[in-house]
């Protein structure tokens, strides 16, 4: 019974995507949109399938992925470390809180010109931008998760004679894990978005660069291919993170 419910949910969820494709195809075939502005979906997916097997396009995907992962990993490490430290130590909290309040709402893309001038046009500036943008959601949700850990759990651990470091890694970190992973999920989506934007602004490779080259030469088909690719990448990465989440949080009451 439950299996059938999930199956019908999936069908229901596919409906709007199908509808979108039908409208897209309809708009082209009934002449509402000229094919130069809106190529038919069949053409776009064919083009994408052909592109995916070429080494040059795979190279672009790989360089995008490299920047994405490098930036995202830096953000995870820094975000979790700073978030935990701010939650357990009042003095670090006092120092970190105002800085985060100032930096978190700052649109990091506006910093990109400065990063370009300082770090050059290579990987470094893009990785820094991705890390800066993904850092704050992870930091804030780590902090939130760690500071809402039940005080009783900490007291019990202390009563059982756990040293302070042990409490941090054996009690607070696991208890904050659901919140941290939620933050990572938001951070991952933001990383996808930002790496693409950075590549659109200045780059010589990567998916964003593919889009902007296509836009400059008015190749509408080639403009859709990188967009769909980044959407698929986001879906796959999200799925992987979801799998990691259900593995890490096995045994938690409700995930």
């Amino acid at each position: 019974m439950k299996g059938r419910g999930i199956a019908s949910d999936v069908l229901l969820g596919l409906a709007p995507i199908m509808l979108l494709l039908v409208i897209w195809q309809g708009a082209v075939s009934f002449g509402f949109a000229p094919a130069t502005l809106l190529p038919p979906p069949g053409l776009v997916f064919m083009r994408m399938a052909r592109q995916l097997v070429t080494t040059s396009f795979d190279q672009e995907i790989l360089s995008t992925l490299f920047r994405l992962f490098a930036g995202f990993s830096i953000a995870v490490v820094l975000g979790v470390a700073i978030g935990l430290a701010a939650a357990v130590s009042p003095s670090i909290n006092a120092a970190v809180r105002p800085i985060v309040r100032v930096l978190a709402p700052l649109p990091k893309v506006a910093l990109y010109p400065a990063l370009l001038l300082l770090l050059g046009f290579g990987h470094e500036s893009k990785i820094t931008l991705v890390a800066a943008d993904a850092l704050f959601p992870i930091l804030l949700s780590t902090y939130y998760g760690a500071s809402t850990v039940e005080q009783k759990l900490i007291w019990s651990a202390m009563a059982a004679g756990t040293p302070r470091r042990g409490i941090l890694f054996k009690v607070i970190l696991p208890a904050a894990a659901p919140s941290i992973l939620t933050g990572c999920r938001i951070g991952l989506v933001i990383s996808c978005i930002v790496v693409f934007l950075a590549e659109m602004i200045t780059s010589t490779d990567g998916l964003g660069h593919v889009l902007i080259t296509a836009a400059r030469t008015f190749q509408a088909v080639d403009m859709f291919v990188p967009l769909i690719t980044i959407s698929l990448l986001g879906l796959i990465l999200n799925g992987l993170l979801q799998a990691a989440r259900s593995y890490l949080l096995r045994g938690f009451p409700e995930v």
Partner: protein
Amino acid sequence: MTLRALIARLAPFLACLGLLAVWQVAALVLNNDSFPTALDSIRAIPSILGDKESLVNILASLRRMAVGFAVAVVVSIPLGLIMGRSRGVASFFNPLLMVIYPVPKAALMPIIMLWLGVGDLSKTLVIFLGVSLPVIYHSFEGAKAVEEKMLWSGAAMGLSALERLIRVVLPAALPDILTGCRTGLVLALITMVTSEMIARQSGAGNILFNALDMGQYDTVYAMIIIVGAMGICLDAAFERMRERLVRWSEPQFDIPLSFS
């Protein structure tokens, strides 16, 4: 007011000053042409804000952002709430939203420009798209977590489904919704800058990246300060409004953990 409270109050300003000081020192140490000192950049601000054309441009950016944000909030909150309360609606929209979420909305700009031109409409549409997703997501999560008992009580007292949605679900989900709006606000600013960077016709993003292309580094850094200040001010204003609206919901995370 005690000294401690005063310091706590001024902490964000102190943090700003500290960051500017770090910048100043770093620029003096690096002594690089493309990295002017903080003071030089601040000195360039009045000339930008004094110039009538740039001021009009920046205000136009803000207007587009406000319109995009407002429309997105008005559309997304009801959709998110309904998704949170009805499993069918949720499974109808969820996959579509998951597909759209990782697409950078500003990257749609070149395509939307082909259809709608480079004017206000395409930029506002892109901002709308950027803001609506986090607001929908957080409203959805908030509405999903509403306690069933409250809804049952509402139903027992004879509230219709729509009344329950407005009088029970909306207030209960308000803290989550406002978190989504806050994320949306930052995203609106990001999308605004990038969409103008791509369309290169008017607006704050245009000034910023034109200055970069022309090598006017003072202007680049001054614009960064202006855009950053916009973000910080908008966020602070929003935070003040949020505190007033959800005073009843206890902010648990303000209590630091203690080991004692």
